């Protein structure tokens, strides 16, 4: 099938403001949006710039706005969009070139929440830290994050508030706060209780809608809010 692509282009060395390039490609309905972007780059305009790596929804490189909503280009089938597809970079970050955005602040927010196991005690029997399936289940959902940024840049609060840590950082804090093997919960909760933490969330649910891993992002944020209120 023939699909018309409108892609937001911006090269800071040449352009003063972003513009839309139009490309028509011949693709199979079951091709993914990423396949079409590759065809455009390889056959029509080699300067088109975007990130991709695994092409199978696990590395988190190719989050972008597809018809106005954050999606992974490698997970979306062309047939679900029809013959006209608009591609724009994620909102709220500086555009480095075309669809590539500067995610330094995104990872800086992530790092403030110690997204790793905090536990100075030696592990128990057999050099392992044991955990029941029930204890593991509590944070199962948030272990699935691939740090693509789709949730954070779908959130209207992040578009205007530079300090808000954003859904992705909170999801990865949730991953460890509720882990029975971890001892760093209080430090993380202190950061999340600050002005730039979970209270910026207005339960808009754009993050949950955007997450390509199907993580219940708003649920995780709300759970942390309740923990901060009740101590549980």
């Amino acid at each position: 099938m023939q699909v018309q692509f409108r892609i937001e282009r911006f090269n800071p060395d040449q352009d003063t403001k972003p513009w839309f390039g139009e490309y028509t490609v011949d693709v199979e309905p079951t091709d993914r949006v990423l396949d079409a972007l590759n065809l455009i780059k390889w056959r029509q305009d080699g300067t088109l710039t975007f990130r991709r790596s695994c092409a199978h929804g696990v590395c988190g490189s190719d989050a972008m706005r597809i018809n106005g909503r954050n999606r992974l280009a490698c997970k979306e089938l062309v047939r679900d969009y029809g013959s006209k597809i608009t591609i724009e970079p994620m909102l709220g970050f500086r555009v480095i070139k075309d669809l590539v955005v500067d995610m330094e602040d995104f990872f800086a927010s992530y790092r403030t929440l110690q997204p790793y196991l905090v536990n100075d005690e030696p592990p128990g029997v057999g050099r392992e830290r044991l955990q029941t399936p029930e204890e593991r289940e509590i944070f199962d959902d948030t272990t699935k994050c691939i740090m693509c940024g789709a949730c954070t840049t779908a959130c209207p609060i992040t578009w205007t508030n530079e300090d808000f840590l954003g859904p992705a950082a909170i999801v990865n804090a949730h991953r460890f706060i509720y882990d029975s093997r971890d001892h760093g919960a209080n430090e993380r909760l202190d950061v999340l209780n600050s002005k730039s933490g979970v209270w910026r969330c207005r339960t808009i649910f754009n993050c949950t809608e955007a997450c390509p891993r199907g993580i219940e992002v708003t649920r995780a944020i709300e759970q942390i809010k309740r923990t901060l209120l009740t101590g549980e």
Partner: protein
Amino acid sequence: MVSSYRGYRAPQGMLSWALHRLTGLGVLLFLFLHIIDIFLVGYGPELFDDLLFIYHHPAFVVGQIALIASVYYHAANGIRIILVDFWSNGYKYERQLFYGAMTVFFIAFIPTATIMIMALLDEL
């Protein structure tokens, strides 16, 4: 982070939030107006009565209907937000709760608006 808002195709949750903020700020504006007019009573009942015509002006009555709509929406959706915040399963029913809030809104607003519009037509 550089804010570069150009467009996000709003899901229903984003619309409900935008309306909540809009109606919240709208009601706040009316509240300020009301504080000013009550303050004017201090300068004597005559002045207050003289200014009452503003409140009977059709444009203001239309504004009052919008005010009622805002209060009803903000209250109904406010309950939805409280449920999402405090009920641990609330997140699952966020969308249904929104449709519920809209139903409550219309059940309350239609009769109120009918009464207000009838009164307005009577005065004209």
